[in-house]
């Protein structure tokens, strides 16, 4: 099984998505099942939150975003087997860089465009000027 060892052999780095032997004490399928359970719970919570009037209206977007971030975390940990261990340093750092770029693009766009919108002449006045 030398070919097998070369492929899966002992090395201190883990490929993204690889599960680690002896890490959590759970079997591979149990980890997926636990992840599914948590993800279903969070999904049901977000759909219920959006349709029921139980939460104060202006607080709903923040609550939904928090649930989404939590669910993305569940997916990363239980489906993609991302850990904070040293064998995952490269994968985690790459992810952190990606998250930074995503936040810069999304938050930056929303921020700048909201300011531009505020400084722009209202649309009906703009139409009047063009006439």
């Amino acid at each position, binding site marked *: 099984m030398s070919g097998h060892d070369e492929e899966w052999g002992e090395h201190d780095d883990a490929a993204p998505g690889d599960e680690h032997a002896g890490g959590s004490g759970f079997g591979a399928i149990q980890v997926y099942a636990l992840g599914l359970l948590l993800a279903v719970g969070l999904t049901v919570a977000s759909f219920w939150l959006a349709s029921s009037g139980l939460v104060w209206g202006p607080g709903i977007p923040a609550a939904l975003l928090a649930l989404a971030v939590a669910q993305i975390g569940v997916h990363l940990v239980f489906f993609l087997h991302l850990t904070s261990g040293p064998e995952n340093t490269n*994968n985690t750092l790459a992810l952190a860089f990606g998250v930074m770029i995503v936040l810069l693009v999304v938050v930056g766009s929303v921020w700048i465009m909201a300011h531009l919108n505020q400084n722009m002449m209202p649309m009906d006045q703009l139409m009047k000027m063009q006439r």
Partner: protein
Amino acid sequence: MSQTSTPSDVASVYLQHGPYGSGHDPHGHGHAEARGHGAGGPAPRRVIVGYGFWIFLLSDIVMFSGFFAAYAVLAHATAGGPTGRQLFDLNRVAIETACLLLSSFTCGLGYVAATRRRQIETQFWMLVTGLLGLVFVILEALEFYEMIQHGAGPDRSAFLSAFFALVGCHGLHVTVGGLWLGTMMAQIWFKGFRPQIMRRLLCFNLFWHALDIIWVALFTIVYLLGAGA
């Protein structure tokens, strides 16, 4: 001139001795006492391929963030046309979400079966994954069709342009992922669990899970916030 090494010198040394200079074992096993953290030789191919695909996925997510930003900016620019609240059917979105989440789970089960070299089990879970993905794509196509029929196509308003670009791009990813899934099933069936095939399966697994992660952001920001606003 003789003191400085030209790029071609460096390249020839690299080609002869590899990135870690002479004295390195050619098989990439590394020295037993100095593994990990860049020391002791290159990582196994499986780690290198997986990491490269991970970088691709992150750049794909960065591309999606551009569509998300466009949607967030244009979400209220309905130009007097229909709003998200009038258009979105949360029941259908809930079924789509369930399909994609379950397919992510069955994809993982298929991968576990593949690492245990069980042909039939692997094929079964991958087939279930593909069928769930197909239901998702059909539901989304139906939604697009109905919206366009009701005059709410991508040409109606900036909001709908951004909506079709974002959701359509994700749907396209799922469609391409489905084609990849079919290819992987055929390759596993005919070629078996070779290391090369297992690396591709690892990449496919990462791709399919990443699609589900994007869908979580999508159903929250587009559908749930849109239907509530």
